[in-house]
């Protein structure tokens, strides 16, 4: 497959994306409901996963098809891994293989294909992130005064967050397995995703439609940029690559501290 074929594949993906109709989004809006469960006598919320999956799966499937196809231009000398927030992790190649590759490092085809493929992988990981919106923290931001006045229990937060992460990961996993089967996913990528999900659920879930400046989403939003920045630092590559568990623990601790302090900061900012 030549460069033109690769660009045609990407173009077909874009045309497909543009084809999302108003009726689809109306359906999405109707189905995007939040259900309240009462385990341990406390309200926790969970988002209906069907519209999230309906939104994500077509894109995941197309990427699973398009990215490996475009990489075949390079004679499969380059591997891609799903690794949110980190393009550096997502490309790997072998010196010996590269020596016999049809496209050499210095040739434009190599750069065009790897950059487009890497951007596609980068894009699909961002598309997957809405799955993390299946959050249990949804009501906290909206009913913050009630939670503030009645107190927010630490055990309740931990329980909610654990359930939230498990649910999000389940959804993420189903998408990830498709990418893995197509050869552009790896456990390494998922481990990173797991850590990032810990932050993302806390960042976005409480305020799906919250527009107030002092919402938890805005308060925490910079952490997603912080994570992006950190994961792109080459100096930290070995740390992040080898100690995914540590990243997870750091993310969880940060989430906890941020969440608990948010109520106080919100009270301070209120008005």
């Amino acid at each position, binding site marked *: 497959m030549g460069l033109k074929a690769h660009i045609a594949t990407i173009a077909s993906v874009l045309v497909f994306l543009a084809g999302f109709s108003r009726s689809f989004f109306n359906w999405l809006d109707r189905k*995007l*409901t*939040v*259900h*309240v469960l*009462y385990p341990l*006598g*406390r*309200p926790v*919320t969970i*988002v209906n996963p069907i519209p999230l999956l309906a939104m994500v799966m077509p894109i995941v499937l197309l990427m699973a098809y398009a990215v490996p196809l475009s990489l075949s231009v390079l004679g499969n000398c380059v591997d891609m891994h799903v690794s949110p927030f980190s393009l550096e992790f997502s490309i790997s190649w072998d010196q010996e293989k590269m020596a016999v590759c049809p496209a050499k490092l210095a040739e434009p085809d190599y750069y065009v294909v790897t950059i487009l493929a890497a951007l596609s992988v980068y894009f699909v990981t961002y598309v997957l992130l809405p799955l993390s919106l299946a959050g249990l923290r*949804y*009501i906290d931001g*909206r*009913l913050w*005064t*009630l*939670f*503030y*006045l*009645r*107190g927010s229990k630490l055990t309740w937060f931990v329980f909610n967050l654990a359930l939230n992460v498990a649910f999000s990961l389940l959804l993420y996993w189903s998408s990830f397995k498709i990418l893995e089967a197509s050869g552009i996913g790896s456990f390494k990528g998922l481990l990173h995703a797991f850590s990032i999900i810990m932050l993302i659920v806390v960042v976005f879930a409480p305020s*799906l*439609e*919250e527009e*107030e400046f002092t919402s938890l989403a805005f308060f925490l939003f910079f952490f997603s940029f912080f994570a992006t920045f950190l994961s792109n630092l080459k100096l930290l590559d070995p740390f992040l690559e080898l100690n995914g568990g540590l990243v997870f623990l750091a993310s969880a601790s940060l989430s906890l501290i941020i969440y608990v302090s948010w109520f106080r900061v919100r*009270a301070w900012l*209120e*008005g």
Partner: protein
Amino acid sequence: MLLEVRDLVAGYGDLEVIGPLSFGLNDGDILVVYGPNGVGKSTLLKTLATILKPLRGSVLLMGEDAVKHREQIFYVPESITLPERLKVRDYLNVVSLLYNGEEIDEALKIVSLPGDVRVNTLSQGLRRRLQLASVFVARARVYIIDDPTVGLDDYAAEHLVPSILGEVAKRGTLIVSTKERRLTEAVGVLKNVKMLNALEYSRVARPSERMLNGSRHT
């Protein structure tokens, strides 16, 4: 005395917005804080609800610093912020659960709302009704409602809100703010009502506002 306010000055940082003021409220009392926009009504109510710290003075609930008993306060803010993707019944269930509250069917009947619709399908007025309905399902000693007529149509503002406030006052102490003269008059006929003209205590109101509104302190 259930709630006692002593020389309270409310505001933000160095900005003193309203005060000093002192008053006391017993169980079943209604305090109507009235005045035009921007004189500090919401700031005062947030401070009484312990969301803001008093700049000076104190707010005592059951003889102690109100912060120690803040779980006995139910506060409805002026802004209509609700969990959009929840159903009406689910929202009220959450409030009821947090405040060890009551059945929600009666509350839905009072404000004429269906329970099985999603919040984001409601109009602005109906959302405010939902917030007011939440007052009925919460069990607290002090209910603080910041401008209950926000977003409501004339009928609801004139007829529904006074009857709701009357019912709430039977359950505990009620503090309500308004800029609507008609609500002040409608609530004024209820028992144990105290009026507080926020303009008199405002430290940020412009002189022209004081002249236009005059003194209506009862």
